[in-house]
């Protein structure tokens, strides 16, 4: 390797098995806050940052990689790690030094990957992580002995609290010498073949260093995916590998197992010599005892159901006080702005558009934070991996796998990380199906819509005094989406994606105490993202919507004008007749006339004027651009029970779901004659058709909710699905089938409900 011994590293990669603390260390080294959680497969793409602190290597690029069990990638996330380490990532040179993060409580399996990385010949520093857990488990690891045996620096650390970080920084101050080849050996029959193939590969691809050629030859011999790319690059080598395989098979040499046997055979005694056990390893740990309950045959599923029920109930009921406070704050802010700003369209724009639009979405922040809090707890304790274990059998029936549970549960927060997490699925069919159904899991952007309509139209009583109807309705919506995801997966498995059966191989990490600081920061980050989103997208859209709702201005209606003049005339006539009766002049009657009669006359006038103003506002909004659009699509939405305002709201929500809330808020606010920021919930309840029927019956609300459970109204989801499937085909299918479900089920609900006489 042409690396001089005393250079300062420019690019440092963090590699290792899944869930060993790579990202925890990455955050420590860079000061960033990438996601850390206690299950394998949290990081699924390469993340990069700069080495913080002061030292020679400060500012070097640090790359956090997805976890991988070997350099024989089985899934897309492992592939990313592989590509970076072997230098196949387009536009990315190989790292100057690889920090191999290993779990000290689980050395043998962790070192398997380390021996592979050593074989590559890249400079390596081993970060011996989780020393605290090792100590607690009664394991004593001799780091110096390990360094000796591996021939690379080994630094014991506790990434969770920063112990050993300084020593690690020092080890990274300069690029260590490339390691010698580790001493493991292949069985002779295979070693000989690999040497021969490596020589042939070097002939064909001369710029490959000999050590690297041997690594590639072994990979190509034992793995089809690793052999495939050579067909074009080195056809002779490709053919030779196939020949060699046939010959080995003929002689019944178990060459595909040779590498594992060789490496583990070398590692077994090595680990024995550096680890001292102070406790009986077969003794049940605390984690084992927790598992005995949480994955128990009967208690396990019940607890899982209970946990989900608790989360949704809590999200619905615990957030209420904070939401009320924000709502009151928004109204106050609107009134304050009205009070200080001069009347005019700018004031209207600010209050009716911006404040109402953004405020009505911000109200839901507390709920979203609570949801993230609970999901964070599940992820950080290690329970998430157990849900995969519990659900695998059921998921398999549906065409998914236990490994789909993590992506799907993540989709309750947001489909985007959920779709990304599907990268951990080794089976391509499972991955595609998981991606296709993930958006059916109700994400946090649906919460505002659910909450608004449930709070307005579902009675607030409680079943048996404890289970609130509103909370139950919320759970029902989540269940509806989830069940439909299963059904869709089954349909896809049965009719669309045929493919080989999948495997399920998942490590169950030990339970760990959740780190509240971590959960807290994740909530803060989430809150920021939500506020920024509300601030950017919804603020902008609200303003656009306000313009669309306010212009073009409706021509004055002569009939309304006449009514207004009529009211004024009646008032004047009444005053005149009072004046005549009392013997006063027309001017005196206001100040000296009989109070009661004058006030009655005035109230009558005011009532007519208010009604006229309200009608004018309503007329204005119907005449406006958004009103025209809404009314244009109303016929299509009418069978679902939606009026033109809801139709306009749904249309505006196609980019992002929660926009419907701000659209409705702006529509009702502009539609109010006084333009005060409205309590949206009240405005919905009060809205009437011209003939006096309420616009929203509970049936309409349910139909709308069902529509939002199913419809895919999220540009970002489509974009990420495009990226993860590499084609527009699947996102298009996704959008269409979900829209069909939304329309079909809303139609069924509304028409069925009406036929049964429910509204």
């Amino acid at each position, binding site marked *: 390797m042409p690396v001089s011994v005393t250079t300062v590293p420019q690019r440092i990669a963090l590699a290792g098995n899944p869930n060993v603390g790579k990202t925890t260390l990455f955050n420590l080294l860079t000061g960033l806050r990438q996601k850390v959680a206690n299950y394998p497969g949290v990081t699924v793409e390469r993340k990069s940052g700069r080495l913080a602190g002061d030292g020679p290597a400060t500012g070097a690029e640090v790359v956090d990689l997805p976890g991988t*069990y*070997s350099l*024989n990638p*089985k899934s897309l996330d492992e592939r990313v790690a592989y590509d970076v380490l072997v230098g196949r990532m387009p536009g990315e040179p190989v790292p100057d030094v690889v920090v191999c993060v290993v779990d000290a*409580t*689980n050395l*043998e*399996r962790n070192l*398997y990957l380390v021996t592979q990385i050593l074989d590559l010949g890249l400079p390596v520093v081993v970060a011996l992580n989780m020393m605290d857990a090792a100590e607690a488990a009664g394991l004593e690891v001799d780091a110096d002995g390990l360094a000796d045996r591996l021939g690379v620096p080994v630094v014991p650390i506790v990434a969770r609290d920063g112990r050993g970080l300084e020593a690690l920084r020092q080890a990274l101050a300069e690029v260590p010498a490339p390691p010698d080849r580790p001493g493991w050996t292949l069985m002779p029959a295979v070693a000989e073949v690999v040497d021969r193939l490596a020589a042939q590969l070097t002939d064909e691809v001369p710029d490959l260093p000999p050590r690297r050629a041997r690594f590639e030859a072994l990979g190509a011999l*034992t*793995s089809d995916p690793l052999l495939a790319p050579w067909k074009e690059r080195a056809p002779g080598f490709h053919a030779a590998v196939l020949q060699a395989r046939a010959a080995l098979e003929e002689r019944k040499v*178990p060459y*595909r*197992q040779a590498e*594992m*046997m060789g490496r*583990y055979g070398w590692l077994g005694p090595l680990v024995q010599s550096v680890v001292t056990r102070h406790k009986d*390893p*077969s003794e049940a740990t605390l984690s*084992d005892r927790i*598992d*005995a309950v949480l*994955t*128990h*045959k*009967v208690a*396990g*599923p019940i607890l899982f159901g209970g946990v989900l029920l608790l989360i949704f109930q809590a999200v619905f009921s615990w957030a209420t006080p904070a939401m009320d406070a924000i709502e009151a704050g928004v109204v106050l802010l609107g009134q304050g702005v009205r009070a200080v700003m001069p009347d005019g369209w700018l004031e209207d724009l600010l209050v009716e558009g911006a404040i109402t639009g953004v405020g009505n979405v911000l109200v839901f922040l507390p709920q979203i934070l609570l949801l993230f809090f609970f999901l964070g707890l599940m992820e950080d304790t290690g329970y998430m991996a157990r849900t*995969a*274990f*519990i659900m*695998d*059998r*059921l998921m398999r029936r549906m065409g998914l796998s*236990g490994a789909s549970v993590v992506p799907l549960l993540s989709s309750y927060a947001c489909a985007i990380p959920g779709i990304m997490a599907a990268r951990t699925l*080794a089976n391509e069919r499972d991955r595609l199906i998981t991606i296709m159904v993930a958006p059916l899991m109700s994400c946090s952007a649906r919460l505002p819509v659910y909450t608004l309509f449930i709070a307005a139209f579902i009675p607030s009583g409680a079943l048996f005094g404890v289970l609130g109807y509103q909370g139950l309705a919320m759970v029902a919506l989540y269940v509806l989406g989830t069940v439909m995801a299963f059904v869709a997966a089954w349909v896809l498995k049965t009719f669309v994606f045929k493919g080989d*059966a999948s*495997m*399920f*191989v*998942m*490590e*169950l*990490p*030990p339970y760990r105490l959740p780190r509240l600081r971590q959960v807290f920061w994740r909530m803060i980050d989430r809150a920021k993202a939500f506020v920024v989103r509300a601030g950017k997208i919804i603020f902008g859209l609200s303003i656009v919507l306000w313009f669309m709702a306010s212009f073009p201005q409706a021509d004055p209606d002569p009939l309304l004008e006449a009514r207004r003049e009529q009211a004024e005339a009646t008032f004047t006539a009444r005053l005149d007749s009072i004046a005549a009766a009392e013997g006063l002049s027309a001017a005196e009657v206001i100040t000296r006339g009989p109070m009661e009669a004058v006030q009655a006359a005035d109230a009558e006038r005011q009532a007519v004027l208010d009604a006229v103003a309200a009608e004018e506002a309503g007329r204005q909004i119907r005449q406006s651009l958004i009103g025209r659009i809404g009314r244009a699509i109303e016929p299509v939405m009418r069978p679902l029970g939606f009026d033109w305002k809801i139709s306009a709201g749904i249309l505006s929500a196609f980019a992002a779901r929660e926009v419907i809330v701000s659209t409705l808020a702006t529509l009702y606010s502009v539609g109010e004659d006084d333009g005060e920021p409205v309590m949206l919930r009240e405005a919905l309840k009060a809205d009437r058709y011209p003939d006096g029927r309420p616009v929203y019956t509970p049936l309409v609300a349910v139909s709308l909710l069902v529509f939002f459970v199913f419809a895919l109204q999220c540009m970002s989801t489509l974009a990420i699905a495009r990226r993860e499937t590499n084609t527009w085909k699947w996102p298009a299918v996704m959008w269409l089938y979900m829209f069909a479900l939304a329309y079909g089920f809303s139609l069924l609900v509304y028409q069925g409900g009406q036929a049964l006489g429910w509204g």
Partner: protein
Amino acid sequence: MPTLRDLDPGDRGTVTGYVADDPPGRLLEMGLLPGTLVEVVRRAPLGDPIDLKIRGFHLSIRKHEAAAILVERVPAS
């Protein structure tokens, strides 16, 4: 010879080989190699997958894969 699938929760065994010539590579990379001591900890509530303890960590695999691995029972001590 029994396979890993035949062991009941609580049983232990030593891997002796594989039923087919080509066992799943991932299981081998995780350390399920001849000579390795395996404990079946429990079955999932629906009977599948199973939770194994090998080399000091917990690994969950399906019965279908477990049936590919030959074991020799280790009598409880």
